[in-house]
């Protein structure tokens, strides 16, 4: 049995769903951020699979850029989380309710 494009896309969807589940369920901002990264990586699996099965390199180059942007994004996001922790003393989302009242 050959591994087709379908299998890669289903794997990508599954990993994306797991990351989505984590974002919805978890309370810790750091873990939510990890799950966001997982969703990003899941979408890159789909891109690489499409690129391979299409026979062109453009999808791979796109993933190359996504990796670069993801690295920059993680640095900025974690800096924001650290600033948030300094200001409010917590990273749990249910305690970050400054806009509530």
């Amino acid at each position, binding site marked *: 049995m050959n*591994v087709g494009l379908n299998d890669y896309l289903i794997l990508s969807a599954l990993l994306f*769903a*797991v990351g989505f589940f984590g974002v919805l369920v978890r309370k810790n901002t750091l873990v939510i951020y*990890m799950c966001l990264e997982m969703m990003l990586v899941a979408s890159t699996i789909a891109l690489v699979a499409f690129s391979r099965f299409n026979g062109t390199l453009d999808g791979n*180059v796109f993933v190359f850029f996504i990796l670069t942007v993801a690295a*920059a994004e993680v640095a900025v996001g974690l800096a924001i989380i650290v600033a948030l922790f300094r200001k409010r003393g917590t990273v749990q989302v249910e305690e970050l309710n400054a806009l509530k009242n």
Partner: protein
Amino acid sequence: METSLFYFFSALTVGFGLAVVLNKNTVNAALCLLVSLIGVAGIFALLDALLLSVLLILVYAGAVVALFLFIVMLLNPKSGLKKPYNKISLVAGTIGAALLAVGVRSFVKHGQFPTAPAAEVFHAGLKDYGAKLFTTYLLPVQVVGFLLLISMLGVIVLSRKAESQEETK
């Protein structure tokens, strides 16, 4: 061989991805993310994207997860005191994720997708990347370089102790 490797790496990726979500300890979650990313790198290697699999290990496993671990140890959030998730959001999250997965799966199952690659040999070496990056994608390369500079400045500004802000209070 390829099929069994695909299933092995898929199980690694999704299994440890679930472990990231369900783990109570944040440090353990970051380490599970690391293993999951190694599985993704294996999938990339199966898709003949060897450069990307090496880059994924270097950038994600080397930099991103290390940064996550560093921040977790720096902040030391009280993870063991409370339940990491409550029941309502667990049910809602399960339903949402299942809907997403089933939706994409039905889309994939009913589409006309090829089962074999268009070309047997896939040229994805360093030379091909270089040729693409410095001809077709020259502008994006420069924009990404500028983005990295901006994000570096942003991180420096964000992580500085805000002295002027304290004074105005």
